[in-house]
């Protein structure tokens, strides 16, 4: 029983989660203004762009998707990407390495990356609640076809894509042991996730060669496919295939992170740079 607690979920995980949740909500005015503003702008921009395109072509459907479905796709994209990218803004791994602040984590009986992962889940949890509320409101107003079963199928894909997102960022931030600045790399990764994940454009609008290349990267499995599972707007790979691919990327990135962490610690001076 003790062994299971150690490896599955323990009190420190919950502390890490709660701590970050309190931190996020500690300045309520900033939190609500940023949250509502982000949602509003992220609806407005795709709405205006796709309205201009639908108007210019004088059509009601494009690639078998109505205008409302397009907007709902981008709305879901915003939430899923926010959950996946949440770790980016909250992740302070590189800062802690640069400032020599990981010393305490080395001394304490805590797994550092695990602690950070539960930290980042706090933001993703808030996003999940926002997504559920949005789907319900959208269903009431526009009557979308999202079923409870589709949402249950979507949930594990979202959890796994959030985990992949965290590991991608963590691997990049662990490079801080060797490199003097990683925030540029983080922005590059963010752009790849947004473009390759279908946040800017649905993948079915991209050229065949780009799509083919993207299938060999983790990016489409972070946003585009999970939303496909949720909305059923376009054909995607079967759920079990998606889960297997996501688990493969988690395994690969986890091994890489552990290796970087071990090698980095040998390099780490303890006083920062």
């Amino acid at each position: 029983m003790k062994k299971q607690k150690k490896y599955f979920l323990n009190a420190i995980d919950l502390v890490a989660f709660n701590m970050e949740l309190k931190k996020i909500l500690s300045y309520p005015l900033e939190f609500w203004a940023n949250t509502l503003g982000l949602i509003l702008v992220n609806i407005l921009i795709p709405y205006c762009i796709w309205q201009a395109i639908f108007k210019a072509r004088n059509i009601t459907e494009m690639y078998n998707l109505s205008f409302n479905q397009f907007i709902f796709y981008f709305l879901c994209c915003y939430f899923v990407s926010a959950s996946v990218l949440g770790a980016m803004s909250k992740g302070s791994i590189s800062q802690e390495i640069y400032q020599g602040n990981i010393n305490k984590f080395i001394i304490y009986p805590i797994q550092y990356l695990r602690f950070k992962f539960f930290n980042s889940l706090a933001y993703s949890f808030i996003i999940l609640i926002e997504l559920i509320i949005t789907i319900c409101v959208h269903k009431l107003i526009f009557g979308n076809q999202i079923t409870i079963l589709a949402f249950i199928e979507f949930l594990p894909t979202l959890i796994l894509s959030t985990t992949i997102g965290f590991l991608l960022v963590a691997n990049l931030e662990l490079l801080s042991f060797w490199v003097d600045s990683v925030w540029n790399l983080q922005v590059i990764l963010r752009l790849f996730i947004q473009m390759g994940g279908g946040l800017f454009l649905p993948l079915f609008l991209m050229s065949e060669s780009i799509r083919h290349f993207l299938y060999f990267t983790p990016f489409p499995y972070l946003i585009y496919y999970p939303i496909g599972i949720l909305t059923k707007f376009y054909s995607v790979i079967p759920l079990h295939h998606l889960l297997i691919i996501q688990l493969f990327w988690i395994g690969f990135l986890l091994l890489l992170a552990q290796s970087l962490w071990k090698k980095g610690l040998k390099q780490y001076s303890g006083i920062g740079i």
Partner: protein
Amino acid sequence: MKRYIILYTHFLRFSFSKALHFRVDFFFRFIMDMIYYAVLLYFYDVIYEQAPNFGGWSKEQIRLFLASYFLIDALDMSIFANNLWMFPVNVNKGDLDIHLTRPINSLFFLSTKEFAASSFLNILFTLSFTIYAFHLIPQKVTFAATVLFALLILNGLFLFYIIHLLFLLPVFWTQGTRGFEELYHVSTKLLQNPEQIYASPLRFVLKFFIPLALINSVPVQLLFDFQWKNLGVLILISLICYTAVLKLWKLSLQKYQSASS
């Protein structure tokens, strides 16, 4: 004025010497921006495949529109952005004190002390791209219109900085560590599209309240379709913004408590 020019040359010297110590940052910042530009250009390529007359803009016009946005962004990243990123944290921790006691304009010092030398290459690249995009437009453009365009782009840069600052100044009241930084960043996405695609109420907001449309959309539009009314609005709103930010800065300093939050 001379004192400020001398001071700024010192800032530049320090920044370039610091940048040479962080060569990886220098390299990756350039790569980062190139990828960012490529993503936006590809995005518009796909959009124009779907709608060749997007928002009433031709592909050549949209290329110049994007080029001017890239140029303003590169200038902002080099001159102001690095200084403003840490601004809310400095207010929150009470770290402004040392800057406020210096015998120069505190806003000038806080906004310009760090020049991002690693973004300097991007200025050169985006300037070349803007000139290239300018040459590709089929319409004949007069010399006067070209000069006006250059001046309006410069004005756009200052508006960009002012709007960023306006999103951060509420931190003096909220005492947070971020201000409305996230909201600002997401709002700047509105800059990436010509204002004509937005609905009328939003266009009104983007011209008169959060004048993002005046940064690059209206200047490019004036180049192709000059209207005194639009130029007048642009100058008037810019002047209001410059005055408002100075007044708000003074008001914010009165609210500043020096204490760490």
